[in-house]
């Protein structure tokens, strides 16, 4: 997976039970609709809790990271044709 580490705009559903589901995101002026949330995991860096979402738009695989500490979204990496 190619590292990107860029702040991005994400539309997500925050459902009851602390469930977060990214719906679409914008990266480099292009809107990507999430077709499948294929995996989710959580980790910590110091005080920060980071929620990782492996998602596909049907073409590429993206790793989106929601930082619960500062409530920001990052595109961590991408795998595919780009």
């Amino acid at each position, binding site marked *: *997976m190619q590292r990107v580490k860029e702040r991005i705009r994400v539309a997500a559903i925050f459902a009851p039970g602390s469930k977060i589901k990214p719906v679409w995101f914008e990266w480099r002026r292009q809107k990507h609709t999430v077709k499948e949330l*294929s*995996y989710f*995991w*959580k980790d910590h*860096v*110091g005080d920060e809790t980071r929620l990782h979402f492996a998602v596909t738009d049907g073409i590429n695989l993206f790793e989106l990271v929601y930082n619960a500490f500062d409530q920001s979204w990052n595109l961590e990496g991408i*795998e595919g044709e780009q």
Partner: protein
Amino acid sequence: MNAFFASVEQQSNPHLRGKPIAVIGAAKRTVITTSSYEARAFGVKTGMNTWEAKQKCPEIIFVVGNNRKYTYTSTQIIKIMREYTPLVEVSSIDEAFLDVTGCLSLFGSPERIAYLIKARIKHQFGITCSIGIAQNKLLAKLASDMQKPDGLTIIKPEDVTRVLERVPIKDLCGIGSKMNQYLTKFGIRTCGDLGRFPIDILKRRFGIIGERLHFMGMGIDDSPVIPDEEAAEVKSVGHSMTLEKDVTDRTDILMYLLQLSEMVGRRARKYRVAGKTITLTIRYTDFTTFGKQESQSRHINNSEDIYQAAVKILDSLVLTQPIRLLGVKISSLQYYTEQLPLFPEERKKALIAGAMDSVNNKFGDFSVTFGSLLGEDRGSKVISPAWRPEGIRNVEVE
């Protein structure tokens, strides 16, 4: 779990599903950590070099592992298991024993509990596991290995003798390749052979293990399922690392020792233990591995003290080959409560370590560290077999 790391990667990336993949480390000279069942069909095995795997399976896709993904998944799976019984003994990141004797009235049969656990893991993570049900840990482990992937095997008490009769002894947990060779020399090839073999000969040859071997051959194992909170206290805190390249230069060796000492010290301070014995482990290029230990005048957990002790051991050795792996460990542990040292110099060191720990707790390991460690990606890159979801063995991985 079945091909745990590879299954997680295949689930994470739909393009990898159904394909031969192997999970490898990020280091240049990495080996295969786990491979998917599709790759295993070509003969790809754990521990192989990437080029060996490529020879076996030209189509293989290598995926650099993401340890945090695996430790998170394992922790969540263990949480699921604990919803059925508090008696969960985690034996590695992808294996656990559950004693469900006391919770059958709540959930029904062991088989039902097994199916529920399998279904929940599959639903939540999309990955499969194999479960073995039997009257003890030895047989449950054997049963879990009998059907992979996605298996559920039950060895009923009345079937034990019949099942074991033809099972090769090497399939029993605890019989490694050397023991297998020894026993084969006695004409013992199957568990049936082992159970029938005269116990006195086994005891004469293997001592107390001989008796255990005899019982293993008969499927008898009285070891209890011990949950983490009841497990014996840890006896040591250590870290080791295979270096990016073999090193001979003293400056390089010292840099790695400092990093390892900081990792050991930080974990020891976090769990409030200090060690009186320091062990330095070295592996040469030809895989010759040895360790030397030295007792200290007092219990220590300050990274700098650990480092100085490790350097002293290093200086007492005559290195004959480049170093491939280094390890630092503290043992003869003592638990302590926070108390600042009396002497100003020691007090200063403890305060500095405390301040560094506070910053690193807030911003992540190695956010503030020794000058010579700056600039590189530090931290534990390998999930140790001793990894556990909680406590002192819960090593944060990169």
